[in-house]
């Protein structure tokens, strides 16, 4: 059982009276790429926010690399090795590319506490290298993110996760706002991640993309995990049936 990267037991999140996530039992193995699918409001993003430390779960356990963890902040999750690309991208529009790539973990030349001097050249060089690795095209590193296309912004966000060594990468709808070519580029990055043997959780609405890229599909419905399907043993129709609730898995709906 030592090859389990992430495991959640009965993970639950309430917002006031709203049960956004209810008793999620989830597992991710070494090198595995898993897609999370589900309708809007099914609990996908809520689930991701719990395991990335953006929010603290109401109940339940998270085991990361075999140890129980309670992330108090996204920084703690990140320091533990969970890198996430969020739906809203978490980019600062008024900053340039290197500043965004290193946001919250800037390279430092002299340590003076909060007034530490930044290593601007080091960050620019590392950014150039990271973007070349991901084949991302950004004309000018010094221009602010605000001036960039949706695809370029997305690529900066993804390059950010690829720049730092991580044990788990999470992407929340990385191609939702992208054109065809940009989507292909992001999918290539995901394939590279797969080849490197790094595990990944992908939230997506795109059935073709999911069947192209991942090993396993977990379907969320009304805040619960409704299905856990191996790609090789399922079909698009079956996944859609679980998403819409036309089909239910008796072994998973015990708590319903």
């Amino acid at each position, binding site marked *: 059982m030592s090859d389990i990267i992430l495991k959640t037991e009965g993970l639950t999140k309430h917002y006031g009276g709203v049960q956004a996530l209810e008793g999620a039992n989830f597992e991710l193995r070494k090198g595995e790429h898993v897609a999370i699918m589900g309708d809007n409001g099914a609990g996908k993003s809520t689930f991701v926010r719990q395991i990335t430390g953006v929010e603290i779960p109401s109940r339940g356990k998270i085991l990361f690399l075999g140890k129980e963890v309670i992330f108090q902040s996204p920084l703690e999750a990140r320091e533990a090795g969970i890198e996430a690309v969020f739906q809203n991208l978490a980019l600062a529009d008024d900053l340039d590319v290197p500043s965004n790539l290193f*946001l919250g973990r800037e390279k430092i030349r002299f340590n003076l506490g909060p007034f530490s001097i930044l290593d601007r050249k080091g960050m620019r060089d590392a950014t150039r290298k990271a973007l070349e690795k991901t084949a991302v095209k950004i004309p000018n590193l010094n221009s602010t993110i605000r001036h960039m296309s949706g695809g370029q912004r997305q690529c900066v966000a993804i390059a950010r996760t690829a720049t730092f060594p991580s044990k788990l990468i999470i992407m929340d709808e990385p191609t939702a706002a992208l054109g065809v070519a940009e989507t292909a580029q992001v999918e290539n990055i995901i394939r590279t991640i797969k080849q490197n043997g790094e595990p990944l959780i992908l939230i997506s609405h795109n059935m073709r993309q999911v069947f192209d890229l991942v090993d396993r599909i977990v379907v969320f419905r009304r805040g619960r995990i409704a299905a856990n399907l191996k790609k090789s043993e399922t079909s698009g129709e079956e996944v859609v049936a679980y998403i819409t609730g036309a089909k239910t898995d008796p072994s998973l709906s015990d708590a319903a």
Partner: protein
Amino acid sequence: MAKSEAGVGGLKYDARRRAWPNELNILLALILIVAAFEILGRLLLGESFLLNTREGVPGLFNEQRLQIIILQVSIVGIIAIGVTQVIITGGIDLSSGSIVGATAMIAMSFAQVALVNGNPNPKAIFMAEGWVDLPVIVPVLVGLGCGLVAGLINGSLIAYTGIPPFIATLGMMVAARGLARWWSKGNPISFPTESYAAIGQGMNPVFIFVALAILFQLILTYTKYGKHCYAIGSNEEAARITGIKVENHKVLVYVIAGILASVAAIVLSSKNLTAQAGMGVMYELDAIAMAVIGGISLAGGRGSIIGTVLGALIFGVIISGFTFLKLDAYYQEMVKGAIIVGAVVLDQWRQRRRSMRA
């Protein structure tokens, strides 16, 4: 031929079409305003606004007027340096004028002399305790401490209770003014020691303003603190997700703003040789106006200290210009108001155009 260097990923990038820095626009505005006063002066009064026209006095410029312009904005300018940082993080500070009042009163009461013309100082607050003729470091540290505490309260309220900065600093604005009045039951505090009085004499306020402006321009550009100011103002949620300790940072920003307000208070009370409870009234709005004129976006995330310094100069030029044209002070206030609104309208317009291009 357009000279273009290859950007990352091989896309062509024309270095000449790099974004035009906003500060240049503001410098241009400053020059235009000076030119307008120069022309109006020659037409209406037959005098030059900034050029030296007096016989037998060397120099190209009217140095006296230049000195007045920069001297009269330097004290509020010191406050504006702090306010700029607050606005860049997406906040606002309405309390700085009142912090000036409270700090001036408290610091001054530790800077008093024992004897005035051989008689015991009639205004001494702490005569009974013997806290007179103290070394200058005491009132200075007490003053800076006042600003620090006020900023700490502002920042903690904003960061940890989640109330809007407008409300938290409005509360501080009223409370600190009350403290300033209560401190000596409304009486002015005068007769500072010579060393305290020396702080704000001559062009010292200008030197202090310029030194602080350079220091914080460098800090905003080259340090983690500066980067995080822009990040929080630009996208607070993103800053939090990427692990920036947003709450601690906000407290630090308001503490710095408070300390800068207290620096202004020390310089002002030293320059005037007295402290009054009404000191610094409306300074917070003048400081915000300087920042806004200087291109600091009230939406947060954009602006620089250079912009604020230029904004302060525009402010000073307008006030001097009106005096020079012998216009009533009432007109100054009205035009000042119009300029502040105009600057914000311009900022809104710039933002809309920017989001259309993006």
